[in-house]
C-alpha cells in the first residue's frame, strides 16, 4: 500500500522574541494510505504543529513533507490552499463552524471553494449531513446545535470534497464522554468502511490505543515512541 504521508527530518521553528522555539525538531515518519494513526503527547509537544503542517496551514522550516506524493514544503500559498481544498479534511476541537451559516451552508462552503455547482452543493451537503446522523438538522445554525451535532457538521464539512486524508485535532476535546464515543465511532466508521486515512491528535492514550492502528507519541518536538496496536 502506498504511503499517504512521508515526513523526513521535518523542523518547524518559531521566533519568540530573542529565543527560538523548536516546535518540531527533526521528525521523520510515514503513514500508509488507509491507516488510522493517533498522535499523542502533552501540551506543547508539537503534535498540533505537525497536524497544521500536514493540513497545509503552515510552512515547515526545514525537511520534507510529502502528502500523497506532493511535497508541501515546496508549495506556494495558492498551492497549499488547493491542498486544503481537495486533499485533506480538517476537524477541529472547537468545531470552527461559521456561526452565521446553517449546517448545510457550512458544509456547502467547502464545496464552494472547490468550484462545485450551487445545486450540487446543496444536495451533496444534505446527503453528507444525513450520513453523519444530522438528517433534518441541516437548516439550523451552529448555536442551535449541541456540541456533538456541531462536531458532526464539522466532520461533514471535512468530508465535503471527498478527501482521502482526514486530520482531526482533539475532535472530542470539547465533548462529554457519551458524545465523544459517538464521534469516535463515526471516525472509525469513516476509516473502516470508507477507507479514509486518519491522523488524530489526542491526549487520551487509552482511547488512541483502542481505536487507532498505531500511536505516535511526541515530546518537545520529537517522536519519542511509536506503538502499533
Amino acid at each position, binding site marked *: 500500500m502506498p504511503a499517504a504521508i512521508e515526513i523526513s527530518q521535518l523542523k518547524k521553528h518559531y521566533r519568540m522574541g530573542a529565543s527560538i522555539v523548536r516546535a518540531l525538531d527533526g521528525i521523520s515518519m510515514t503513514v500508509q494510505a488507509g491507516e488510522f494513526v493517533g498522535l499523542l503527547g502533552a501540551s506543547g509537544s508539537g503534535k498540533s504543529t505537525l497536524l497544521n503542517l500536514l493540513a497545509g496551514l503552515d510552512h515547515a522550516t526545514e525537511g520534507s513533507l510529502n502528502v500523497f506524493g506532493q511535497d508541501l514544503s515546496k508549495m506556494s500559498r495558492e498551492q497549499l490552499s488547493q491542498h486544503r481544498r481537495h486533499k485533506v479534511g480538517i476537524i477541529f476541537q472547537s468545531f470552527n463552524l*461559521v456561526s452565521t451559516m446553517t449546517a448545510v451552508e457550512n458544509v456547502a*462552503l*467547502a464545496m*464552494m471553494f472547490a*468550484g462545485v455547482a450551487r445545486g450540487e452543493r446543496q444536495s451533496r451537503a444534505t446527503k453528507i449531513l444525513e450520513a453523519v446522523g444530522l438528517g433534518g438538522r441541516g437548516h439550523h445554525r451552529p448555536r442551535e446545535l449541541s456540541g456533538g451535532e456541531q462536531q458532526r457538521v464539522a466532520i461533514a464539512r471535512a468530508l465535503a470534497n471527498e478527501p482521502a486524508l482526514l486530520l482531526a485535532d482533539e475532535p472530542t476535546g470539547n465533548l462529554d464522554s457519551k458524545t465523544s464515543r459517538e464521534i469516535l465511532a463515526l471516525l472509525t466508521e469513516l476509516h473502516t468502511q470508507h477507507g479514509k486515512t486518519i491522523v488524530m491528535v489526542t491526549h487520551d492514550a487509552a482511547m488512541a490505543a483502542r481505536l487507532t492502528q498505531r500511536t505516535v507519541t511526541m515530546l518537545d518536538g520529537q517522536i519519542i515512541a511509536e506503538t502499533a496496536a
Partner: protein
Amino acid sequence: MTFMDTLKLAFSNLGQAKLRTILTVSGVAVGIGALSCMVSFGVGVEDQLVSRLTGSGMFDSIMVTNVQFSGRGAARGRRTAPARGGERGAAPAGRGAAAPADTPDTAGADSPAETPRLRLDDEAIAKIAALPNVKSVLPDLRVPVQVSYKGFQEMTFAIGVPLSSAHEGGFQTFAAGSFFANETDDACMLSLDLAKRVTTEDPKTLVGQKLTISYATASAKSGATAAPPPATDVPEGLAGILTTQQINRIETHCTIVGIVERETAPGLFGGGSVSSVMIPFAKAKAIDAVQVTSLQSVLRQNEPRGYSTITVKASSPSHTQDVEDQIKKLGYSAFSLNDALQGAKRAFLLLDIFLSLVGSIALVVSSLGIINTMVMSILERTREIGIMKAIGGSDRNIRGIFLIEASAIGLLGGVMGVSLGWVVSRIINFAANWWIESQGGSAGNLFSLPFWLIGGAISFSVLVSLLAGLYPARRAARLDPIQALRHD
C-alpha cells in the same frame, strides 16, 4: 468559486452587520451626493449659458468677406489669394476698415477689372450654399433710406432681416410688438432708440402705424430735356455725367410691427443684428437691386451685384469650424465666434473639475469610512477568515469577497448618493428660481443631471470604494490561518 458565489457571500456578510453597512453606505451617499450635486450645478450652468449663446445665433454664424485683413490696401477688395489661417485673429479689427457697412457694394465697385478677384456675388453665395452642413447663406444688406413719420425725417440704414433670425440676438426681446410674420409683408421693425426719436409719445404706440421709407433709383432718361430729377443727393458738379441717367425718389410705406429693445453694433455676428430700421430680407433685396447709393453705383449698374459681407449659418455650432475652413479653401476670408464658445466650454470644464474636487473631499472622508468599516469587519471576522482558509479558501478568494463587499458599499452609496444629490439640487433649484423670478429674472434649470453624470458618479463611487477596500482586502487575504483560527 464563481463570481456569483463571491457576490452572494459578500452581500450576505454585509447583511450580517446591517447597521454598520447602512451607516457606511450613508457616508458614501453623502459624498457622492455632494459630488454629483456640484458637477450637476457646473453642467447645468454651462448648459444654460451655451444654450443661450447658441440661441443668440452668434455661434453658428460665419462672416464671409472677400477682402484681406492684413492691410488697408488689401482691404479694398484686391483679393487674389486664398485667405491664410492666421488671418482670423485679425478679422474683427480689419473688418471695419475693410468693408464699411454703409457701402454695400464696395467689393464690386472697388476691385480693379484687371485683377482676378473673388467677388461675393450671387454665384459665390450659391457656391457656399452648396457646401455640406451649411444651413443658409445671406448677404448682409444695409440700404441707406430716409424714414419719415408725420413731421419726423431721418436718414438711416434699413437692414434686411431674414425670417430665420426670429428669436436670435436682438430679436429675443421686444419692447413692443413682434417679429415679421412673413417675408412679403410691407412690415418693418424699429429700434427703441429710433422709435423714441420718431415720436414723443410712448414708443409702443407706433406699433401698427405706417412709416414712410424713401430711397433713390436711377433709370435712363426719357429725353435730353427732361426736368432735373427731384430730390437727388448727387452733387451738382457731377450733373454732367448724368446726362443719360435720371435719379428718382421712391417712397414706400411699411407697417411698424415691432420695437426692438436693444440696438446692437452694426455687423454683429448672426442674423440677430439690430439696426435703426429693419425690413424683411426680400424687401431689402428688392430695394438694393434698384437703389443707387453713389455715383459709382450709377455708372456700374450693369455689372453683377457684389456684397461686402455675407453671413453663412452652419447647421449646428459644432459644424461652424468645419464650414469656416471650407469657405476659406474657396478663397474667401471667414470669421466666426466659434472659438470663443470653445474657450467658454474649456472654462466650464475647469469649473467642473474644480467643483468635482470640492465634492471629492466628502468622498475622501467617506472612503476613510469604508476603510474603517472593512478593517473593523476583518477584526470581527478574523476567525471566519481562518475557517474559510482552513477549508480551502485561497488568498484570492478572501480578497475577492472583501473587494466585492467594498464595491457593493460603493454601488449602494453611489445610487443613493445620486438620488440624494438630485433631490437636493431640485430643492436648491426651486429656491433659486423663486428668488430669481422675484428679482425679475427668467427661471432656468441651474442643475443638469445627464446620464453620463449618473453613470459616472456611480462608477466613481464603486471605484473609490474598491480602492478603499484594497488595503483591508489585502490584509484579510494575508491573514495567517492558524493565528486567525485562534482569534476569539
